[in-house]
């Protein structure tokens, strides 16, 4: 709870920090970047993240780490756009490296998580305890 409060305050703080920066710029801000809805999404996601993670079984904290690794490799989306777009070669090389890195995380992350989880065996006793 404390953690949640703290963190979300932090995020909210970030939001406000962002705001002034913006206000200075709204002049030449490209209208289509609706940064406020992004901030709303960020804050809401953080709430969900904290809420969900706090309830993860202590048994599974190691697999959790590798699972979140894999999930945060969603950066792959950005990499694909950069690599595949009509851009100068240098830029696309950067993209390709990023894509390779993200892809590695996705593959190894999900595989090792599942490998670890496969090991957790149930037991009648287990039902009661955990």
């Amino acid at each position, binding site marked *: 709870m404390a953690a949640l409060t703290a963190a979300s305050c932090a995020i909210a703080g970030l939001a406000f920090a962002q705001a002034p920066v913006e206000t200075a710029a709204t002049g030449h801000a490209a209208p289509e970047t609706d940064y406020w809805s992004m901030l709303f999404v960020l804050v809401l996601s953080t709430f969900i993240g904290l809420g969900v993670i706090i309830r993860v079984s202590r048994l599974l904290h190691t697999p959790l780490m590798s699972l979140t690794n894999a999930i945060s490799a969603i950066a792959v989306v950005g990499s694909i756009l950069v690599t595949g777009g009509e851009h100068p070669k240098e830029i696309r090389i950067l993209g390709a490296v990023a894509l390779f890195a993200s892809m*590695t995380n996705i593959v190894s992350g999900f595989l090792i998580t599942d490998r670890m989880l496969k090991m957790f065996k149930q037991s009648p006793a287990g039902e009661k305890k955990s």
Partner: protein
Amino acid sequence: MIHNIVQAAYLAAMVLFIFSLHGMNHPRTARRGVFCGIAAMLLAVVATWMQPEVLNHGWIVVAIIAGFVVGVPLSRVPLTAVPQRTALSHAFGGLAAGLVGTAKYYLWVGESPEQLTTFRMTAIVAEIILGFLTFTGSLMAAGKLQELKWIPQRPVTYRGQNIVNIGLLAIAVIAGLVLIANPTGQYAPFLFPLMMGLSLLFGVLLVIPIGGADMPTVISILNSYAGLSAVAMGFVLDNKLLITAGALDGSSGLILSIIMCRAMNRSFTNVLFGAFGQVQAAKAGAEQKVYKPETIEGAAQVLEQASLVVIIPGYGMAVAQAQHRVRELHDQLTKRGITVKFAIHPVAGRMPGHMNVLLAEADVPYGDLVEMDEINGDMPQCDVALVVGANDVVNPAARTDKSSPIYGMPIIDADKAKTVYAIKRSKNPGFAGIDNELYFADQTFMLFGDAKAVVGELVKQLAREGAAAAH
């Protein structure tokens, strides 16, 4: 049209990611969680790829294949190497974020500077700094955990170190602010690389002064940085899915670090700037009190007489890969109608949940893994506490000795048991580098040797006696 399909796919992927993490709150649903995650990732990749602006597929295919080529072996590492692998993948994550940020910046500078709004530029700067410092920082962490020769294990410290580090970061941030104010100014071509370089350097310097044993905590702090850099990328690309996934990752890192720090009774700042490992060298020497060694036979007999045995595994079990032997011991004892429980300390080993994974690997049903708070109640009724390569997590000094570096850290009350057998190789201290009163207590007897070997001996001995009894 395409736009809507893509967005719908992203929305679905977001939901699936949340379910994926939600599944982890019980081993029963955990694997389903992984599949949700994979499905989400597939959706996201396909949806992105099918967008019209993606024209060159060759490189993408190559990069993806390369990813598989490296990723699959990386997922086969032994469980003891999991911390390193995690650190490594944070490095990759940070790198990806940093590179995409860099690419986007130069792209916009070149093609359409007006796109570099203050907001976007802020996001790019955040992405670059976080991404690159996570990259090098995680690499260092991985190296330390892998105990590479050319990376110093013990914390490297010098006077004014923190000032220097903070100073470097400050310069990088200032460079960033200037860039935000004027993304294409005359100094930009020089400031941007400067910012990148400083971030990379800062990552290294941030981790150097931290002892190898604090790495797990550092890793999960870096984990949340990686998440934040993904969020920043989401802001740059105006992509809600990235923001959500990044936030999920970030909060996971945050919470795990908090849990670890609590369980070690340490603060973030203490972990990051405390240069913890140091004290070790100093204290390690002290050795006056006497250990009472015990023979395998003796231990085996006492174990047979017990009615409640609590096995307390620690980092040593991981190092020795002794989990399978331990499992056999558990079977031998339960066969005799003895109740055997495993006492799991939240920070036993070198990463959260370390012991659980190892014992699960050895087919110990997770029902028998009891958390610290639960087991401590039973310790007084416990006839034999078998400490398998655990040290700090059973060190009574944490309860009594105010001067001890681990004072206040919650521990497993092995000392409350009627008899204690402690398995370790030497008289060396554990991770915190301090003596452990427990080993000198009246009811404690040492079984020196490699955990795997010693437990193996115990099992053999018990089996033999079992057979003997059968005749």
